[in-house]
């Protein structure tokens, strides 16, 4: 049967990409349907129970700036908050939270259930409805057909999933989820390039069997950060500690002795694992000189005793897992509640996507999340948000939003994927962002919220919050500019400036040793907490501090980077036949034909590109555009 109502956007999959996509398109007013195998598992954290961290929290801040779900849900569910890199500069400070899985899931579901324009339906999707190379809907297991203008596919690792526990294998998505075979068959029949990746999880441990007195304990930060710019500490549930233990010589011996039984080392696994998240087998083999590895013991939640030992993902057989887990300090009697496993899965080569995340193969079909070869909730959520926005914009006959690399980590993420593809599960690192100094957590709202308002993506609450912040920053700026400090004056002494001549408060703030806290104290307006939350002016004042201190530096860095680039905005016509361009090496011709960059900027990031080749492309593009103008005026 065909469902009586038609939708603008159908999102298939209810993970982190799917939920952000569905919520985003619904916020923009598109009539949205979220199809999931299980409404119970919406927003499920299938890997480690943490959100944020370096590079990742930047993505969360961007999702948050566009009024997305992840930051808000984290403040509802976070049971342990820290700021990483607190001692480094503002661009690389990153908030991270351990989240209670159940609370997180509940928070996501609550947000979705209160979202106007969004409906949910629980059923596996078995096929897409395609008319004239346009996706116009999908069909569920029971033969129900939903029609829509666009479809966003966020089905994670469902394609060709194979789980390895030692020498045992089974087909499957994440442990416990059935793989959706039919849809996979359908997609395989289309001309998408498919690659294979692998990832692993550690065995989970029952906390009742662990002796915590033997573990190092790690407290959350005080003062406690919040994840969303609209978050409050009062939203946070009870806070608990994490713990740290270490592997030892005995652990390593057990692993070494059983290497041949690891799926990875026996050759049973063909997929490529992430370099930044090696299995414990890999660590022991590749870094044989290290006698010990640090293992973070993350709580799975407040109402469960299950623990996630981060750092021992493995594809060794269960008996070996039990043996090496029990060799670690505090884990002598540990009970494994779920065995660790490695999973191999297929992903679609993201080079078959446009920067809008719409596929090049079928119009109206968008891909987001792990299906594109990424890893991580934050990476998935960011793509979901973008796909949701662009699916909705397509329904509104608007051009897609393609965030630039100097605008957002989302831009870096998508641009990297679409230009270069990936050979390992792609994870965000700040070192991927050449405009790192400007892409900060603290200014994500200033970078993106205005855009979100323009798209109709940002609700009235966030708008008010954002405008208030801006006006506060502006007011402080004015005040600081207008406040003169005389040598020997009260302020001079309180701030220990040792002035020789008169200066302004703004100038004083530029000094490395002066910060917003010191100034507010000196002004007798200390930023004390109010009702357990940060002072309402603290965020704005900190913002002013960062902008004032680093503005010159960031500008200079921008100039330096821009000097290295030229004419990056120049678009390359889709019809350009790179193989016919004289003066390019054959190798570059092939690479260009393969990547088919649509702008000079994107061509510039293809490995092996040279300045001379870019000049040649530039001239050919310009000539082509002149030609077409000529043709159209004739």
């Amino acid at each position: 049967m065909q469902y009586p109502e038609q939708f603008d956007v159908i999102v298939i999959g209810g993970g982190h990409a799917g939920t952000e996509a569905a919520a985003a398109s619904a916020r923009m007013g598109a009539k949205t349907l979220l199809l999931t195998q299980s409404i119970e598992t919406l927003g499920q954290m299938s890997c480690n129970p943490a959100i944020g961290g370096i590079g990742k929290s930047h993505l969360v801040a961007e999702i948050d700036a566009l009024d997305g779900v992840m930051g808000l849900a984290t403040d509802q569910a976070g049971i342990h908050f820290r700021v990483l890199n607190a001692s480094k500069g503002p661009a690389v400070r990153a908030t991270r939270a351990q989240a209670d899985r159940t609370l997180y899931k509940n928070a996501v579901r609550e947000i979705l259930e209160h979202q106007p324009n969004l409906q949910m339906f629980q059923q596996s999707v078995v096929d897409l409805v395609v008319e004239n190379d346009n996706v116009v809907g999908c069909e569920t297991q029971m033969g129900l057909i939903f029609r829509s203008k666009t479809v966003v596919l966020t089905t994670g690792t469902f394609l060709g999933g194979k789980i390895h526990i030692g020498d045992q294998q089974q087909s499957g998505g994440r442990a416990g989820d059935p793989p959706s075979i039919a849809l996979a068959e359908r997609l395989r029949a289309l001309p998408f390039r498919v690659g294979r990746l692998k990832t692993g999880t550690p065995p989970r441990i029952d906390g009742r069997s662990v002796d915590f007195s033997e573990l190092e304990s790690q407290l959350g930060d005080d003062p406690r950060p919040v994840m969303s710019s609209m978050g409050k500490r009062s939203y946070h549930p009870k806070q608990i500690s994490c713990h740290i233990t270490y592997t030892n010589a005995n652990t390593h011996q057990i692993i070494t002795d059983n290497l041949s039984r690891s799926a990875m080392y026996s050759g049973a696994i063909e997929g490529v694992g992430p370099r930044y998240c090696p299995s414990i087998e890999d660590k022991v083999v590749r870094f044989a000189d290290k006698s010990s590895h640090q293992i973070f013991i993350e709580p799975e939640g407040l109402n469960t005793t299950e623990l996630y030992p981060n750092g021992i993902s493995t594809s060794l057989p269960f008996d070996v897992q039990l043996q090496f887990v029990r060799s670690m300090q505090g884990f002598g009697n540990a009970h494994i509640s779920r065995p660790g496993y490695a999973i191999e899965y297929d992903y679609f080569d993201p080079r078959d996507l446009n920067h809008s995340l719409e596929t090049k193969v079928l119009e109206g079909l968008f891909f987001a999340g792990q299906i594109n070869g990424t890893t991580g909730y934050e990476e998935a959520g960011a793509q979901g948000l973008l796909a949701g926005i662009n699916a909705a914009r397509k329904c509104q006959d608007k051009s897609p939003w393609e965030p630039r690399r100097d605008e957002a980590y989302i831009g870096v993420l998508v641009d990297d994927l679409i230009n270069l593809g990936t050979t390992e599960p792609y994870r965000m690192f700040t070192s991927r962002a050449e405009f790192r100094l400007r892409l900060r957590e603290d200014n994500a709202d200033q970078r993106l919220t205005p855009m979100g308002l323009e798209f109709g993506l940002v609700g009235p609450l966030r708008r008010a919050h954002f405008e208030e912040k801006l006006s506060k920053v502006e007011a402080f700026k004015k005040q600081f500019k207008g406040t003169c400090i005389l040598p020997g004056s009260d302020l001079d002494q309180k701030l220990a400036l040792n002035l020789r001549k008169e200066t302004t408060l703004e100038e004083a703030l530029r000094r490395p040793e002066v910060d917003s806290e010191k100034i507010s104290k000196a002004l007798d307006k200390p930023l004390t907490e109010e009702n357990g939350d940060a002072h309402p002016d603290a965020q704005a004042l900190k913002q002013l501090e960062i902008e004032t201190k680093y503005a010159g530096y960031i500008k200079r860095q921008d100039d330096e980077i821009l000097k290295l680039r030229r004419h990056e905005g120049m678009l390359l016509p889709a019809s350009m036949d790179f193989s016919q361009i004289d003066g390019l090496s054959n190798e570059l011709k092939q690479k260009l034909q393969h990547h088919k960059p649509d702008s000079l900027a994107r061509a510039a990031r293809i490995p092996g590109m040279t300045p001379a080749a870019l000049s040649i492309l530039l001239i050919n593009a310009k000539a082509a555009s002149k030609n077409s103008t000529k043709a159209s005026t004739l």
Partner: protein
Amino acid sequence: METDQALNNDLICAIATPPGQGGVGIVRLSGEGAHTIAAELCKNPLRARTAVYTDFFDAEELLDNGLALWFPGPNSFTGEDVVELQGHGGPIIQHRILNALCQRGARLARPGEFSERAFMNGKLDLAQAEAVADLISSTSIAASKAALNTLKGAFSQMVTAIALDIANMRVRVEAAIDFPEEDIEILQEARVAQDIAKTITSLESILAQANQGRLINSGISVALIGKPNVGKSSLLNALAGEEAAIVTNVPGTTRDLLKVDLVIDSLPIRLVDTAGLRESDDEVEKIGIARAKAQAMEADLTLYVAAADEITTQVNVSDLGKNLASLLGSNDTAAEMPTSNILLVINKSDLNLAAGAPEDVASVRVSAKTGEGLDLLKKAIQESVGFGQENVPFAARQRHILIIQDTLAKVNAAADALAQNLGAEFVAEELFIAHQCLGEVTGIVTPDDLLGKIFSEFCIGK
């Protein structure tokens, strides 16, 4: 931030006239601020589309004089602000003018870049576009060949080593930023500071060793060394093509250093004639001989001049070394002198003696008197300093030096950022740009390459 317009008309400069000695040498400057820095060099106001007769200065030093022409954009060849400085030609002067411009914010244009800009700004028609692309393609091939040539040898090894040092520093700093929780002491600031200091020293020494400053300012220096009366001064005159040195047949005529600047096929050369090396009681001559020895040590190339009748037996490297050592009066000095920097010149070939042929010593037979073999000598001089045809390596080399200067500035900035405690990402940023600068010579290292290095060096991963 818009990434397009503003950065596309940064200031570029290049020599617009063909390489070599000519009546007029034009240095062209295009882009935003061309007028300002040209006026600074001229210490004279420029007038639009009017030739102004003026001196060209680098700060207080007079470089040349000639005409300065200012074509305000868009009515210029490139469509941007263009200034032409028309001086007296000669690569030495022109390169010094380029240097002065680069120190004030201009950069050397890439091959074909003026034409490219002209095309982009609609100053060339569509039919010419292809020609421009061809030009860029062919000149860049020549330039990259040339770059490759200069990249052979010690210079390239040093640059590659520095690039590796910077990569390793970046690995540590970036790892500290992206993986602060790993139980490894990645960023020990003291160590990074040490590494940065070491890199600064390396970059400074490469600049010193590359000799490019001297090459640009005075050309390569070639010392004529030999026993008295073997015809050193005659040879100098023959090369210079003019009577620049006093030439007599009384041994010891040249008592002091005589320097002549000349240009051989566009390679600027400072030829230094020295006092004939011999035992002497004359105080003045003794001083001259001491200076000759010092000159032999400093020169980029030493022409060891011997008369044909002096070389009557087989000669090999060790003979030459010994000969030179005894002439210079010290075994040590001779040992320090790489024989690759010595060219044996057998003069007076017109005497027509059946002289012994040197075996494995680079040698040229010439006659300063008849001019026989002079062309070969000129070619040998050029080759000995890696100077090929078309003047391209010279420009390529200069480009490399400028890149190394830029790199040095960035590494210095990284040191400052570290000293000021600005935050690791600021240090990282300076190193990133330094690495990018050097990447123009050694190839760009992508973020993914760097991550790969991090993961292979440190056990990262929870």
